[in-house]
């Protein structure tokens, strides 16, 4: 199971890298979103995908899944959510100010 998920994470990372290297602002934002998806899945996988009950004590199971990575992911999701919201607004403002979403034209010249 871990190997399958590892492959999936690899695909997510490569798509994210591809998107990050494109010219359009919005594709770059999508790239960062996919990158953080990959990172979150990786934390879950690296914590071990062992069988067990959900980490709720009321379930009274013999073994539980590891609760720590879930807490880490929850924190990381909220952070990347905030970041993405900020980045989207920034993208919108940049687009409004420069009237373009092409990074080639957003390169910046020396003589401004």
């Amino acid at each position, binding site marked *: 199971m871990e190997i399958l998920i590892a492959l999936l994470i690899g695909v997510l990372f490569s798509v994210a890298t591809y998107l990050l290297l494109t010219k359009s602002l919005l594709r770059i934002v999508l790239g960062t979103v996919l990158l953080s998806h990959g990172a979150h899945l990786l934390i879950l996988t690296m914590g071990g995908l062992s069988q067990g009950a959900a980490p709720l004590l009321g379930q009274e199971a013999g073994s539980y899944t590891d609760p720590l990575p879930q807490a880490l992911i929850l924190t990381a999701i909220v*952070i990347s959510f905030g970041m993405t919201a900020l980045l989207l607004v*920034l993208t919108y403002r*940049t687009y409004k100010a420069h009237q373009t979403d092409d990074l080639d034209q*957003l390169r910046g010249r020396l003589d401004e």
Partner: protein
Amino acid sequence: MSNLLVVPFLLPMVVGAVLIFFAKHHRLQRIIAGLTGIALFVFSIYLTYRVYQSPEQMIHLEVGDWSAPFGIVLVGDMLSILMVLMASFVGLVCLFYGFKTIHIERERYYFYSFFFFLLTGVNGAFLTGDLFNLFVFFEVTLISSYVLISHGGKKFQLRESFKYVVMNMVASAFFLVAVAYLYAITGTLNMADLGDRVAMLDQQGIINVIAIIFLFVFGAKGALFPLYYWLPKSYYGPPAVITALFGALLTKVGLYSLIRTFTLIFNQNPAFTHTIILVLAGATMIFGVLGALSKFDIKSIIIYQIISQVGFMIMGLGVFSADAIAGSIYYITHDMVVKVALFFIAGIIIQLTGTADIRKMGGLLKKYPLLGWSFFIAAMSLVGIPPLSGFFGKFSLIVSSVGEGQYVIVGVALVVSLLNLFSMLRIFMNVFWGEETDITFALSNKQVNGLLRTVIPLIAVTIALGLGAEPAFQYVSAAADQLMNPTHYIDVILP
């Protein structure tokens, strides 16, 4: 008693939140912000004294009374508490410079709140003893920096801060990746526990890989050689206060994390990891100073000097002996002060002349002698001329590198210092010497001296650090000894 450790980041956090309510009352905002800045500075002096006097020279707090590897610990050892002290000093000075230079419209849009949130993140990152907590404090720092760097929303700022944000989001994602791998191998996130368990592992290969991912992450935040490309332009946009604050604090958080992780956790195979750091340090110095030489814009030159100095600060970690790390710590302390002074002076010059191009200026020394000589002292200190603080950091770094037989980096450091001298003197000669040009000065002599009042303490500190190098070195040597003996750290945290 050790609850004191939460104050350096709890106080700015609470004040930052309170200031949101007074966004439209700029006078009240300034009073609250100023008093908080002073309180934070005084408190961190006291805290430094407490740590220095405590029997282990380290105090720690187990948050919520959960014992060490299970809960979050805050650790104030000698390095982190020194960093907190310098961060609150720099924060205080920037605050008072900000009162005089920040436009009132910026103040109305939560400038001081984000200023204090930035300090929260920085102080928290220095004090934490937990890897994931370090990530969270990194993000607190970064998200305030995103806002401050695009604050004002000029075209240039928007364009460059987009690149800055994306770059940092990618680095943060890789931070998570590195944490995930390390957790998979060791099953812990507490730094002391990690240091303990990594030493017991016999899988050196995977540890090396994780060490390099961490080097990538912290190198990207601290502007090391191949990863500094985002810094020059994105730091150019915001006003001088914010650039000074970023130049003094943000890169230092990356460097502090590098020093912390590579002395505590990844200290098993220095022949591999620390050699890479040394090579990167040399390349960072060279490329930074070349950038500084290629520019005629005073702010750009000093921004490239940030990159060049990062190389010196990380060189001590690459050499990896107690003396070299002591030199690095001293250099970081000195650089925080001098870099802020230089940015303030550059800000004053730009405000005064209305241009940033040094070719268009000339003869400022005659009319503004105090400005000229403050710049001269700060520049000489940056380059490392003997009575000033920059000399002792470089001296200790170079002597210890010779002692370890790292002659190449010594050669690079000496040549780069010479080029640094050239680039700083070029500013001094163009701006302060020569014929007066037909620039109309926007400020009177009195106004300039008023702005300089915040620069004088910085100049005084760099002179004091230079003249008082003996006690300062006793302190940083003790801090470096602590770093080189991670077992002491581990024993204190995990009894």
